[in-house]
């Protein structure tokens, strides 16, 4: 609030309304980790306020405290000017606080109706509640355009609609303060825009919205106020109109950040990885990859854009040898791989196919292992691990220390437990290990998921450097910005198919977004995102 407003309010003789939420000196520790340190936060009623910060900055802990999921070790919470004790989510719901979680709190095997009724059934038997909830759902869908089929099973709905169920759930409970934790991570750009429209409508109706995100673009697009968190502390409050991306990024990271990796045009070399008519079915028999064909050349980054769950993971699994080829052929480094000639990941690594897996916790690292041990995973039979029967631990640790220095892994201690590093440093260990093998082909899945901005910048630089050395890189990411910044060519996947291709210079986020949603951008004049969600 500016000094002018206050002055005006005083002259008028009335008292300005109390803030919807006020947090005073909130502290929360998990063991030795001080997740929230003396946090102060004021959210004015009827505004959209953002909290931005890197992974691990303490944003999620803070909103979990506000939603009564954790209780703070110390500090005060005031709702509409009144001090409240939020010891459970039930308390928070009573105070009119609703939350849309990053991982949806929905029961997939139950209907939309059952899900939104959970916790407010309106009596011991359900009959009454069902008819009332139906009416209220219809009302809400009319007021805010939140259409939904109340009888659909949640597991059959696309992610965008599942998120809608979460929002409806909060609104049905009479939420006047709505918290959204990283709401756009799973959405197409168009779905995200649609979500923002809904949030603006809610704001007009007086709902106070708290948006947690690590995406600067979203903060700039929709918030009135923004708060920056770093290392468990609230480091800045800004009016969104008085700040910019560079300023916020500096506040988040604590130093200047390069936004776009330095991409430069480069003529690609000879084809290295050729994929022809690859089709794949999962264990339940549904088709997850359908007739995929493309060629990857040396010194080229080929980006695969798509909403998570459209076959990208399976494509990586098949190409890296984790899943056997079912139909179609892969030609790599002179070898032909098909359903009869299979190659496991070890054999593929030997011919120069390295893999930075999507999920570093389950596939990239063994968390209880030391960094040195993690640095030879998959290469433990080659001479980096020593010769003969035994591991040469000195050699492994020396090499790991060297890699850690080159990739700026902190702390640079090869004996440190892999699980003890931050997300960004864990990812750097994986990236270092795979690039150090000098592969001909590098398969990369979500290289910067849950990674801080500083490490993102570094990883992007290393991927481009590998490309310049002639490595062929297949980059799968749900972050469209990342794909567009690094890729020489972009393929778009939807429902297991490749639905479009575009070159670096011609990439248009709107066209790609439509393709990600399965819509042909050439025929997309009047199609609204809402319909894509329901499709």
């Amino acid at each position, binding site marked *: 609030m500016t000094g002018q407003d206050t002055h005006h309010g005083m002259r008028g003789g009335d008292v300005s309304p109390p803030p919807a939420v006020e947090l005073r000196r909130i502290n929360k520790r998990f063991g030795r980790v001080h997740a929230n340190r003396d946090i102060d936060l004021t959210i004015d009623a009827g505004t959209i306020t953002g909290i931005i910060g890197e992974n691990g900055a303490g944003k999620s802990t803070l909103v979990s405290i506000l939603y009564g999921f954790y209780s703070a070790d110390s500090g005060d919470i005031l709702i509409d000017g009144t001090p409240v004790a939020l010891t459970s989510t*039930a308390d928070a719901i009573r105070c009119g606080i609703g939350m849309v979680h990053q991982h949806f709190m929905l*029961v*997939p095997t*139950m209907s939309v109706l059952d899900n939104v009724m959970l916790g407010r059934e309106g009596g*011991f038997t*359900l009959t009454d*509640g069902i008819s009332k909830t139906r009416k209220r759902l219809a009302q809400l869908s009319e007021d805010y355009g939140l259409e939904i089929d109340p009888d659909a099973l949640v597991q059959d709905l696309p992610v965008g609609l599942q998120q809608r169920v979460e929002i409806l759930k909060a609104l049905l409970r009479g939420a006047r303060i709505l918290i959204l934790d990283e709401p756009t991570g799973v959405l197409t750009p168009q779905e995200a825009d649609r979500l923002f429209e809904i949030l603006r409508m809610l704001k007009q109706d007086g709902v106070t919205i708290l948006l947690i995100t690590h995406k600067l673009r979203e903060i700039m697009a929709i918030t009135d106020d923004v708060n920056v968190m770093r290392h468990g502390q609230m480091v800045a409050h800004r009016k969104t109109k008085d700040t910019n991306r560079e300023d916020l990024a500096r506040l988040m990271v604590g130093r200047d950040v390069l936004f776009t990796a330095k991409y430069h045009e480069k003529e690609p070399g000879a084809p290295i990885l050729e994929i022809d008519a690859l089709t794949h079915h999962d264990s339940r028999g549904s088709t997850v990859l359908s007739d995929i064909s493309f060629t990857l050349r040396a010194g080229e980054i080929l980006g695969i854009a798509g909403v998570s769950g459209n076959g990208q993971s399976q494509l990586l699994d098949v190409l890296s040898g984790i899943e056997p080829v079912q139909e179609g052929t892969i030609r790599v480094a002179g070898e032909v791989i098909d359903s009869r000639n299979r190659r496991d990941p070890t054999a593929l690594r030997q011919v120069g196919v390295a893999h930075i897996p999507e999920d570093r916790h389950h596939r990239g690292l063994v968390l209880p292992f030391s960094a040195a041990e993690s640095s030879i995973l998959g290469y433990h039979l080659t001479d980096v691990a020593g010769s003969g029967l035994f591991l040469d631990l000195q050699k492994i640790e020396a090499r790991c220390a060297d890699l850690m220095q080159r990739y700026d892994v902190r702390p640079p201690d090869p004996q440190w437990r892999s699980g003890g590093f931050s997300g960004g440093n864990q990812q750097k260990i994986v990236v270092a290990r795979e690039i150090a093998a000098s592969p001909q082909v590098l398969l990369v899945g979500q290289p910067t998921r849950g990674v801080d901005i500083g490490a993102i910048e570094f990883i992007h630089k290393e991927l481009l450097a590998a490309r310049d050395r002639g490595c062929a890189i297949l980059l799968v990411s749900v972050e469209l910005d990342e794909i567009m910044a690094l890729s020489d060519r972009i393929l778009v996947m939807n429902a297991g198919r490749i639905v479009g291709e575009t070159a670096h210079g011609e990439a248009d986020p709107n066209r790609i977004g439509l393709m990600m949603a399965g819509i042909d951008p050439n025929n997309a004049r009047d199609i609204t995102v809402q319909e894509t969600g329901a499709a």
Partner: protein
Amino acid sequence: MNEVLLPFILTLDATLRLATPLILCAMAGLLSERSGIIDISLEGKLLSGAFAAAAVSTVTGNVYMGLGMAIVVSVAMALIHGFACITHRGNQIISGLAVNILASGLTVTIGFAAFRQGGQTPPLSADERFGPIILPFADALRDVPLIGLLYSELLSGHKLIVYIALISVPLVAWLLFKTRFGLRLRAVGEVPEAVDSAGISVTWLRYRAIILAGILCGIAGAYLSTAHGAGFVREMSAGKGYIALAAMIFGKWRPWSAMGACLLFGFLEAASSRMQGVELPLIGQTPVDLILILPYILTVVLLAGFFGRAVPPKAIGEPYVKEH
């Protein structure tokens, strides 16, 4: 016609009697497992309930006091299981196993100390047991062809607890699918986080589920020793708790299907004792043992996924811990 039908109807009648403890235990297991708690302690609750019922019945001479004590003891066993695996987030299989071992040892020890009959209770007299309930008009309708026979021989003349078991199935189905408690119970077994986030206590909800399971097992226990049998014999549950668990899985965690499975298992048991010593064409002596192991084979076949996948509640076996 009656001469042809009667043996068949008598087998069905025995099926009902043998399936009763299975049905009650399967409903108990269903409530517990739908809330996310694996319940192999059905066996221990059944056994301790059977002992409590017989012991109290013989001491007080009142069979209903016995039933009441069976329920109290079985609920207490359930609470031990709950304390270990809900409050202290212990391993549910191990905790259940501990309850079973405890029941097996404690019933014999207390029985020996109290009655000095090698771990058994004294045989119960007729008024220390549940008597048969003759349904109205059972005698009058006996001569009506087929229907009369079914009514008077198959439906009428059972012990009270047989009827309780039959009623428990629609009751559990109603509770599970038509009430607030059931909605929350089903949700907590799938995604406990969703329940917590809706402002409902996961712990209290799960405790209520296992207490209900304890009540049902207690009734089943009382049936074994004071209705079906006439006194407690060591290890008299004889794996019925496990069979009920198998039947519940066979019924894919659904009340009516689970009852169907219990009746099937009961029928196989009834048939095997009826076929004892009977010569069959081609096969010769009826392989009774083979019939007796059929329920187990069926369960394994089902679990292997032959009749469509039996999908357990997603959060089953996992203690609920908030993140961090």
